[in-house]
């Protein structure tokens, strides 16, 4: 049986794929917020401000959020970056800084802009194609168990309870998932 080749760097992977597990040769330079030009409309910025405030838990409403919340906020606003991309715009903070270090709205905007500009959002088709990989029988379904395993062990791994939450009520009596319906479900929140 051929040895697993996962440890090799993956030239076959598209540029937006997650970085391999070993310390990477940084292809992208450090994130520099001053190089980012903001292209949002004033209306959009007001929307962002409202959402930012929702994540601000300071009692004096200082318009500051923790680093750990930045990713959630960007996602809540409609983007879907990888965790790596988030860490990149945050300037690769240490784990303990995530809860304690704060950023304000002005620091947030260039980070968000950078993420918005990223081309690779993933469309419905991408998604379906991606799941088709696991469709062994080519019948439009994937095994729930296999999908769970993949999500928990590959890429930006999910925790077991996260997988449970995602797959809640999606599997049929045989443990299979119709992935086109699944994709619609995910994308519709």
């Amino acid at each position, binding site marked *: 049986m051929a040895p697993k080749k996962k440890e090799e760097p*993956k030239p076959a992977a598209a540029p937006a794929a997650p970085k391999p597990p070993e310390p990477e040769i940084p292809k992208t330079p450090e994130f520099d917020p001053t190089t980012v030009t903001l292209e949002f409309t004033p209306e959009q910025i007001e929307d962002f401000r*409202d959402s930012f405030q*929702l994540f601000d838990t300071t009692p*004096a409403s200082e318009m500051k959020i923790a680093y750990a919340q930045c990713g959630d906020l960007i996602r809540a606003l409609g983007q879907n970056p990888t965790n790596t991309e988030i860490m990149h715009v945050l300037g690769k903070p240490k784990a303990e800084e995530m809860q304690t270090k704060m950023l304000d709205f002005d620091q947030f905007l260039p980070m968000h802009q950078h993420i918005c500009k990223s081309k690779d959002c*993933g469309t419905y088709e991408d998604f379906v194609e991606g799941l088709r990989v696991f469709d062994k029988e080519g019948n439009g379904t994937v095994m729930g168990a296999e999908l769970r395993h993949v*999500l928990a062990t590959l890429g930006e791994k999910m925790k077991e309870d996260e997988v449970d939450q995602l797959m809640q009520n999606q599997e049929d009596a045989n443990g299979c998932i119709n992935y086109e319906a699944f994709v619609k479900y*995910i994308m519709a929140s």
Partner: protein
Amino acid sequence: MGCGVSKSNQFKNSGKAIKSAVLIQRWYRQFVARKEMRRRYTWHIFQSIEYSGEQAQIKLYNFLGYLMDNFTPTSNERNLISHIFRENEVCRDAEWERYFCYKNIEVPDIYSGPHLTFPLTVEQAVGLVEAFRNKKQLHSRYILQLLLETWKQLRLLPNINRISTCHSKEITICGDLHGQLEDLLLIFYKNDMPSLEKPYLFNGDFVDRGKDSIEILIILFSFLLVYPSEVYLNRGNHEDHIVNLRYGFTKEVLSKYRMHGKRILKLLQKIFSWLPLASVIDQKVLVLHGGISNTTDLSVLARVDRHNYVSALRPPKKRHQSVAGLSMDSDMDEDAGSTNKVFQRRPSLTFPKALAKDCFQNRSLQDFSDRLRVNTVEEVESHQKNRGLLGSENETSQSCESINSEDEWKQILDLLWSDPMTQDGCVPNEVRGGGCYWGPDVTEDFLNRHNLQLIIRSHECKQEGYEFCHNRKVLTLFSASNYYDVGSNRGAYVKLGPDLVPYLVQYQASSMIRELSVRQSVGRSERSAIKVLREQLFAHKSDLICAFKKLDSENKGRVSLSDWATAVESVLRLGLPWRIMRSQLVTGRSADGSIDYYEWFNELAIKGANADHIDQSLLETLYRHRSTLETIFRIVDTDNSGFITMEDFRQTWKLLSVYLKMEITEDAISDLAVTIDSNQDGSIDIEEFMEAFRLTDKKSRLERGRSMFMGTATDLTKLEGDPNI
């Protein structure tokens, strides 16, 4: 996994597999984040309405206090409400027992509820739980008897319960129950009822909001009597008759016990004041209802006369020595010719949020409380002068007392009303109007000073039923599941053994809930919150139109989205993210994104009372201040009959007009009365009145389940919203 597949295929597949995994993971995280966003603002809506209700209660109370101080003794308004400030009229404990004698209350033969004999046995306590599960009601005779016994027991207890886990395995601690019997039954089902092997500690807020508050009290008190060393109770901020007037407990008791409800409530006032303030387990874990402040001192709290604080919202009664040397509770009210009136009503230590000057609904009390505060120094001085009238022997200690009693009062207020915050420091809790917000540094300092390791508190609803903060040194515990709405949150209780490591158990009442997926339950709560919000908007129609007009300089009947959000916030003052919620609240928007505000009110489609003959602005006042109005009615209804006379009705409206600084004509009031005085006998049924002016939400044209993020979101496949349950 790759049998029979060539090397290169496998390699490509695994690359693809990873890519697709990442794609799913990214989308999942976005899905979670959006859900979290919706959950947050839904929570925010419920909480700000709840807290603004609490604030309103405190404001109302301060206003009534102002009236008491500043109206002439003969004034009608004053008489109407003076009894709320009148302390328990009876002076001595023996008289109390006589006053609350239950012996002359007959239990009729047709009564099918439980019968109690004292001393209470375990079987009876368990029997009560069963009876309530079967929707029985306990007869008022037995309640009074039970309350008397409870009172005797509570008086023996110290301010701070000292609990030890060495005699039994674990103690179970429960948070707020708020009259939700189902949750208590669920806890007993999962965890067994209290017994010698199963000690319990209930951390306050047993009553209000839920519909079975009295049943919960009966159960808790019964077990307290049967297992005095295994069952512990802490007082919560809702164990307070002032708060109960607004939040439903008073109403519940009076409607369940028409004959003796008033007596029961009076006795409960005293009992609440005798509830212990806090508990300490194994000298290491502090359990109290609200929280701490940077001045909280357990040794001070251990020494206070806790029963002097019948309501935490008002300054303490003064105990002074009468001529006969008996200790007496002085009466706040000016009884005719009393020269022994030493006590001046002191200004409240509560502080409703500072409000904009031109905000209509808030034109009420800030200036009152300011005026009151200024007088503090003078009052304390005159207080000390008056002391000379009494016996001089305890002069020094009593004057120390008068200065310290402010501190004591603050200690208790902080203990019952405070909330933790993430930032360091300690600031007044202006959202609730009492207590403070305290930070992790205050926790750290407090724990060190008192040689403790953990604070367990309640007071705040949490989605998971519990939440750690301050580096896991503070645990918030909330035991009323589905508090805001079906599916809004779980409840939890904690078990603590000799190792003092908290073990949490979660639950959610009602089998329907288990079926709901997380997504569905967020959707339900959200719909419910939006509905409440729409009613609030409707109730403020005049003010909103006014605010819109100001921003609509060209008088086109339209405003931009930004202006809409600004205007709405300036009127409602709930601090909500209006822009994020716009698609839930407004459907019609023109191409340029502006909003036709007249059209919008039609859309809200809220049905009001069939009351065309009633002045529009008066109607709105009714909707907006419904809760306050009802509270005042109940205060005015001195014999608790559920009816008030026409004359009192008029007086009430006059009171309200002063409170709101709003002109209400005699004719307008008559119109109102006519609407509901169906039997034409000149008395108004409070319930009927409140029902007549309730808002109902008609089926709305607003779409549900629509994505609310426009702008940068990619075009998503729109799916049907959450299925209706």
